């Protein structure tokens, strides 16, 4: 069995009186695709923010590749191999698509400029953004901004990739192609945690599903078992047993 790349124990977070996550345990194995489901406000993005370092933990601890993450800053976590996308795309609007990737390649992946040029050009090609390489990111459509989020995260050369609802707003065909791309990413030996509401997309590639509700983990296991779980059906799909 593959080694555990990320583990979190007792992860808790509150914003004032609002308890967003309560003692959540999470374990991800190298090369795995873990899907995270849950209704809005379940704490999914907060969990990502704490893995990437964008938010601090109230209690609990994350271990990445056998070492505790403690209060390490996001840029250090990125350099250690944790890449992420944002649910609401955060492009560098005044820079071109290519330059957006260059930032991640040169600072996240610590490549030289020459290496980064070639690496980013290749990722743009693969993510369908080659024709838009020299357009400013601010001028891209929402769909292209989502592609850019994924491409930029890849440019940081992560070993763990956090995808936050990248299929949201895509057509069925676009979502199918996205699934293909995620499969390809896994072949690069990148572990993926994917928050997604588009169930077809996540079911097509996830090895395991974890479901959150009001900050608590209510299910964790193989996708088919989790989807058949009565609690998950009630909470996530509104189906009463």
């Amino acid at each position, binding site marked *: 069995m593959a080694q555990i790349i990320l583990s979190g124990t007792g992860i808790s977070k509150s914003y004032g009186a609002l308890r967003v996550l309560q003692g959540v345990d999470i374990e991800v194995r190298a090369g795995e695709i873990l899907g995270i489901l849950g209704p809005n406000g379940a704490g999914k993005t907060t969990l990502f923010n704490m893995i990437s370092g964008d938010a601090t933990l109230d209690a609990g601890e994350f271990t990445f590749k056998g070492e505790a993450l403690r209060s390490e*800053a996001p*840029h250090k976590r990125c350099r250690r191999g944790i890449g992420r996308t944002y649910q609401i795309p955060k492009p560098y609007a005044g820079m071109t698509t290519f330059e957006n990737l260059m930032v991640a390649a040169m600072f996240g992946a610590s490549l030289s400029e020459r290496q980064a040029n070639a690496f980013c050009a290749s990722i743009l090609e*693969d993510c369908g953004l080659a024709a838009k390489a020299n357009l400013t990111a601010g001028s891209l459509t929402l769909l292209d901004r989502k592609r850019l989020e994924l491409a930029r995260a890849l440019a940081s050369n992560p070993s763990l990739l956090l995808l936050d609802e990248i299929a949201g707003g895509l057509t069925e065909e676009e979502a199918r192609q996205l699934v293909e791309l995620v499969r*390809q990413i896994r072949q690069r030996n990148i572990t993926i945690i994917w928050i997604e509401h588009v169930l077809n997309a996540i079911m097509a590639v996830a090895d395991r599903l974890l479901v959150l509700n009001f900050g608590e983990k209510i299910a964790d296991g193989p996708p088919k078992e989790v989807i058949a779980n009565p609690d998950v059906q009630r909470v996530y799909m509104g189906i009463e047993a």
Partner: protein
Amino acid sequence: MTTANITLPTHPGASIPDVTVIRHTGSSRIAAAACAILLVAMISMPWWGQSGHIRWVVEFSVYLAIAQMWNLLAGYAGLVSVGQQAFVGVAGYTMFVLASNFGINPFLAVWLSVLVPGLLALPTYALLHRLDGPYFAIGTWVVAEAVKLIVLNIGYVNAGSGMTLRVMSQYTLHQREVGIIWLCASMLLVTVGGSYWLLRSRHGLALTAMRDNPVAAESQGVNVKRLRFLIFVAAAMGTGLAGSIYYMAQLRITPAAGFNPSWANICIFIVMVGGVGTIEGVLVGALIYFVADRFFAQYGAVYMVILGLMTLLTALYARQGIWGLISSRIHIPLFPVGRKLIGPSPAKTGGTP
């Protein structure tokens, strides 16, 4: 999303064809040549220019330098300071003290004096870095006023009466003009040329990313906190250098002049009207301010009202400033900092060079 045959590079070190990235344009080459000619004209000016015109060049260079430093601060690091006069004043005073009281050559003292604004920037940033937006701006103004009050109460620097640079009388007018104009040329190379070099380097990518989205930049490996700190210190030193040179040319400094908030106002006007976040914008803004100050300052309040209105109108209707309006119509980057991807290099792919 992508084609059916996806072939992601396995890792950055995998054999990936080299690509061509263009960093210069025809207009930027012309601008570089023009800058070189202007620089030569500038350093030779004491031999062919009039004293009055040399003073104009010194003044314009100082405006350009302090505005470019403010452009780095506000336009890239997101640090809107209205207290840059603190660094102008302390550097000016340090130069006067080193030259008058310690007998150090004043032209060398100018360079030594930039260490003090650099040192002052350390506690200032430590105190203010947790503040955001308008709170940070107010904090910088408070620090500048506090420094001014301290200087006003130090008898060693003649308190409110200010200091006079009598040591300059040992030089002839020509020697002074050569020294000051060469200092100005060096200052422009360090502040404007240095900013251009910085923005074209890998750190320029990080700075621009930080300007556009600091949260994303941090999560892509950019150490945003350290970069902001370094920019704050560098801007303080660059602003101080301009202050030292300006007051050397004036031969006199007082707390009221050295720590005058109008220094910050000049920066804000030049950068906002010219165009924030670009070197070209600062050039345009500095030219407008210099011409306005030279030829319309005599109209007093009306002149100030017009400058204020220009800033307001730019903020409301042309956020990218006059250079932004120009570049949205004609693509003539004079100081390009971007990277244009052309595609696989013909040499590597066996195509026609």
